[in-house]
């Protein structure tokens, strides 16, 4: 879940900024393992369309989700420039496809405001807040909460256990 207290207590934090459908999002840099291209994905049948499949990340079989598909943004095409942000979620690794990665920046706690109930493509339950950076607005994503949520279907839940 979102942890606004921890977010405000930390003086400054580094975030990776990426874009999705014209909005700028940010994720804690400590969650990011690496950024890589989109290639060699093995499709998995009978899963939601935003789960593109799995790939081999140095011997680990890692799922790739396309946030563009998940949040029904502009047509998702896959080119040599398609970017995958590889995240560490607890013990797990997951890759997410985004439109582009822009930069790494520092945010101080007074730049971060609580997220309103609406406004972003992403459910507010997965947001840690909004940050203003000069004339930009960054939407801070709680990667853990989002990737382990049931709607992401990345983690086994009791209901989804197969016979």
């Amino acid at each position, binding site marked *: 879940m979102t942890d606004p207290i921890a977010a405000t207590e930390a003086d400054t934090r580094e975030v990776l900024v990426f874009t999705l459908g014209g909005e700028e999002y940010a994720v804690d840099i400590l969650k990011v393992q690496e950024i890589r291209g989109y290639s060699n994905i*093995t499709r998995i049948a*009978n899963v939601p*369309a935003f789960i593109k499949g*799995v790939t081999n990340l140095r011997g680990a*079989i*890692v*799922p790739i989700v396309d946030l563009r598909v998940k949040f029904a943004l502009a047509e998702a095409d896959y080119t040599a420039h398609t970017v995958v942000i590889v995240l560490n979620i607890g013990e797990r690794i997951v890759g997410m496809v985004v439109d582009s990665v822009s930069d790494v920046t520092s945010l101080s706690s007074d730049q971060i405001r609580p997220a309103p109930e609406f406004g972003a493509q992403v459910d507010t339950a997965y947001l840690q807040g909004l940050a203003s950076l000069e004339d930009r607005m960054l939407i801070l994503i709680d990667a853990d909460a989002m990737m382990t949520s049931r709607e992401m279907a990345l983690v086994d839940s009791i209901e989804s256990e197969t016979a």
Partner: protein
Amino acid sequence: MDGSDFYDTFFEEATELLEEMERLLVELDTSAPDLEALNAIFRAAHSIKGGAGTFGFDALQNTTHRMENLLDLARRGEVWLDRSAVDRLLEAGDVLKGQVEAYREGGVPDAEAARRVCDVLERIANDKQGTPADGPSDDVSPDAAAEVRCDDSRRLSITITGIKDGEADLLAEELALFGTVADRRSPRTDALALSLTTTAADDDIIAVLCFIVDADQIVIETAGERPPAPMLRVTVRDVDVATQNSLCAELATLGDVGAPRVDGEAWTVDLTSDLAIADVVAVLGFEADVTRVTVESVAPADSVDRANDKQAGDVATGSSDAASDEASTGTPPATAPPARTSGAKDSGGSDSTSIRVPTDKIDHIINLVGELVITQSMLDRAAGDLERERGEALLAGLSQLAHNARDLQEAVMSMRMVPMDFAFNRFPRLIRDLGAKLGKRVNLQTLGGATELDKGLIERIMDPMTHLVRNSLDHGIEDAATRLAAGKPEAGQLTLSARHEGGNIVIEIADDGAGLSRERILAKARSSGLSIADDMPDSEVWQLIFAPGFSTADAVSDVSGRGVGMDVVKRNITRLGGHVDLRSSPGVGTTVRVILPLTLAIMDGMAVRAGGEVFILPLGAILESMRVAPSDVRTVAADGHVIEVRGEYLRLIELHRVFDIPDAQTELDRGIVVVVTSESRRFALFVDELLGQQQVVVKNLETHFRKVAGVSAATILGDGSVALILDATALARTTAMTRPAPLSPSRATTTHETLESPVHD
């Protein structure tokens, strides 16, 4: 290595020793105990005690000490272990396990349990020690001994030598004033040894004893080693002079060494030492071949006659064979039974030839080797484009690399393999206890205990196996009266067996009980709302008891069926990549067969292609492959499509439909059909083509993702891409009724696609 590593090693060793002890105790024939077994049990207790002392685990040390005392008396034939005594020892073993567990978790062991078990052991030691030949110990009151506390007061071993006639009893009486005297022995006619549990200081005790003897005649030791230093006779055959000298030097570090004697090829020396025989043998093993070494405890010359008298006494009073066995080892060393040294060799020898490695280190190596194999096959693939002449040296090197990588992989995998005995050895105790509880006599037979299986699998197969064994005892094997009435032997027979079959291990749990009741199961299935036909073959009827929720029915168990949790058993086994089947005939018995892959980490597979996607089909599941014509396909109203293969109709499953693969071959005669077997069901799997056989490293999909229907795991192909490993069992089942449960509602419409006609027109 820091201290905690030593702790871990101790805990692991202690656990193993306790298991070994338990196994030996259960196997012990109480009417004629095997001296070798008694020695081994004693050694186990002794080793644990030693380790516990080193690490300061006092409760563990105290309890094992009591156990050791009793076992020592037993192996010397002074105490006869009857069935109830063995039961108490087994309980003591359980308490010890609890203590080890408590220490392992950094807690404090249950003092009450320890005290209880110490009292019990003490009581047995004293109660059973009442034969006339043991004269001097008669005056030790069992009641007094029972009051002994393990934890508060100190336990001392006191040895007094050079005493005169009549002084022994006097000394014992004096000592009894300080606390509780137990374990009184006279190792020599002029010596008294006993253990004293007291709160008094050593000086106070010596001060009192000095009224009778001199201070230098008294040796007081805190509990630990056994009080009297027994004399051991070491005999080594075929040994040269240089080795004799080094043996002498080694022995001198262990205790007082007498003058060596040479008699023919045997070299004999007496050693006065507290050490256990096994320890002495282990030390000698550094210098000489242990098979040539005989070590035995001997009575000093002037008391040999007494020992012989005692032997006669024991036999006369109908005591155990152990007594006579024991006494016979007191006769000349040349005729000493070789069994004793061979047993000692086991404990001494294994230490020097094995090394304890944490399994996660091995797993790490296995992962690395897996990566190496993948890299090697990527290189292979890249080199495939090379021109033959130019790349000859490189290709030769690559082929060598492939060979080496495969050998390395096999060698590493074998490190994880352990014999099935690891699993089987836990059952004698279970059967003993459960049999006693249920009032049934059951003989256990194990076959193929040397069959090797991945350690991880063995650990995970224990629970399902335990469950199946319990079920056999509880519901399968009838009580004695019913058995006799049915013309069967009174004692039930339970057979556990293991064998390799192809790339699998087959474990069978067979009983000669009442068997399953077909009618009962069918009736129960109907009342649970399962759709079933009366003419269902037996094999399918038996599968019903594995259905979730079905098995808890008492309706089954009150006649002959199985109890709870068969669905859990099946699920656990399926999760390991194995399957269960069951054969049963009324009145004759039931056999449950568990078939498991040898290892979880590596699998022989067949790469198959459908459209642009590659899957791995476990090789063990493939029976044959063939091309079929569309005309070979028959439509069966209830069950979709079947093809006839050698007179048998097999359900046709098209891979591209199950996994919704675009651009796959749909014309039956352009692709290929693979006959797949799973859980004794067969089906025909239609794919575009077979790409070839290869060994794959199994990667868990759930590590970073989740379970995928129809897929057991994933692997990495030579080009670095991921391929899914098909789960034949799940394929057979899911397509029989519905498609794999879709995660996305948008795909739910495809649910019955597999049942549609694969061939149009």
